[in-house]
């Protein structure tokens, strides 16, 4: 299915006002929200793996506002890390003291946010590409870093994103070493990278990778490089289920 067809068949990112019911269609995923009573809404989501999520949402009025937006690819199959391992389909060769700027497709997930008093609260997340949402290890089993792993292809520009599946990220690579280097992967914490969307397309803040010498060791220093765009910035998905505790009483 071409990107144009995907855009026309599926719901777009953005804010939705629900007075009675709303159905969001995404690739192999259906989200249904409907009013079930006075100041009460139900939320239903079914994905391609057969997983069903149902929630009741008490509201302050008979209207409810939500936002659907791209989020960082850290939640499926479970949140275990803040790092991402991007393996390029083609290696990039950089001669000594040179730099290159590339666009790559970076996996994304989709977040559903509840808007209350202009605040965005995390309601649900989903992935439209569960088969390719997997983990990878950078380093040795005892001291390595667990990452979300993705084999990525090069993109032409910021408009080349795959709706609901991949956003576009700009990576600047600088080789300050005195020998040529081949770069085939980047590993970085994606928790500092914001996402932006327009219709069904998305972009992420980029990264700047500097290959340099520290003492006698060659290292790759990775810094976040904010993207300049007038697209809408996505809210940050926060898992609110992990930090809730219940105090039963005193001893």
């Amino acid at each position, binding site marked *: 299915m071409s990107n144009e067809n995907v855009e026309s068949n599926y719901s777009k990112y953005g804010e939705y006002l629900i007075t009675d019911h709303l159905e969001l269609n995404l690739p192999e995923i259906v989200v249904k929200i409907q009013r079930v009573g006075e100041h009460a809404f139900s939320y239903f989501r079914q994905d391609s793996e057969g997983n069903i999520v149902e929630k009741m949402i008490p509201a302050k009025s008979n209207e409810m506002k939500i936002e659907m937006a791209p989020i960082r690819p850290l939640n499926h199959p479970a949140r275990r890390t803040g790092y991402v391992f991007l393996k390029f389909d083609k290696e990039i060769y950089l001669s000594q003291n040179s730099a290159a700027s590339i666009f790559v497709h970076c996996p994304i997930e989709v977040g559903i946010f509840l808007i209350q008093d202009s605040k965005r609260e995390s309601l649900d997340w989903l992935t439209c590409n569960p*088969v390719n949402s997997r*983990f990878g*290890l950078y*380093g040795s*089993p005892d*001291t390595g870093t667990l990452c979300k792993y993705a084999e990525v292809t090069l993109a032409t520009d910021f408009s080349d994103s795959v709706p609901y599946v991949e956003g576009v990220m700009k990576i600047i690579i600088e080789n300050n070493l005195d020998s040529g280097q081949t770069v085939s992967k980047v590993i970085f914490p994606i928790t500092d990278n914001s996402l932006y969307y327009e219709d069904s397309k998305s972009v992420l803040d980029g990264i700047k990778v500097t290959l340099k010498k520290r003492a006698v060791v060659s290292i790759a220093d990775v810094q976040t490089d904010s993207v300049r765009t007038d697209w809408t910035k996505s809210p940050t998905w926060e898992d609110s289920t992990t930090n809730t505790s219940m105090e039963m009483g*005193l001893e």
Partner: protein
Amino acid sequence: MTPIEFLQGLSEMEIVGGLTVLSLLIGGIIMAAGIIVAKIAKMIFFKYYAPTLPQDTAKNFGKIIYFGIILISFFAFTSSQGLDFSGLLVAGGIFAVVIGFATQSVVSNLISGVFLMIEKPAKHGDTIQIPDMSISGTLLDIGTFSSRIRKFDGTVIRIPNEKFFTSNIRSLTVSTVRRAEAMVGIAYNDDIETAISAIKAEIRLSMPFVLRIPEPEFRVEELGDSSVNIQVLVWHPRDDWSQAQPILLTTIKRALDKAGIEIPFPQRVIWDAKD
């Protein structure tokens, strides 16, 4: 009788060697107050300060606070009674030898507990295995004399610190990732490469917690009596053992079924000598 006269009466009632009922009553009040203060101090510590500390450290600090206050109360009690323990020192030498033999294992457990707290071979909440005792589970705490482990069946087992300290302890949560393994046999007339490709594809599709890097590994382990035995090794995040090991064989079986590859039964060819 006024209360003052009542107390005077108590102070004149001597029990033994100058110890009166009144002084014993005051001592009792000091000890009771000490225990109450110790409990309150421990409760305040656990409620406001312990959540910011590691659980092992918090438990040990809690014990030090509780028993420290009780010990101070005991000294206050003995000094209020004017008790002199110097006479015990002479008899104590002989008595200590007797007590030493009798409480050898208790002291051994105590010292092992101290060494366990210093060395920290595992910490509270770690999943560990003690192969010598065939025990696996989550370490609940390392106490003064014993340690407690919650086994995977939900029961809690208490292990004396001496045995725990001298045993081999295998930590299952110290590494970032762990490996799950399974062995499967395929028929001799099936293609090994086809079987491996089928298993690899099925793992990739239906086991989301299996790591892509390092890739699943396949080793032809044995040319057995009835089958070619292949060992399958996959890596997964350390906390997701239950999403890998228990379903690995099911996934392999499903992959081989889909690919039409036979898992042979053990078979033996018997030749009749007359033939």
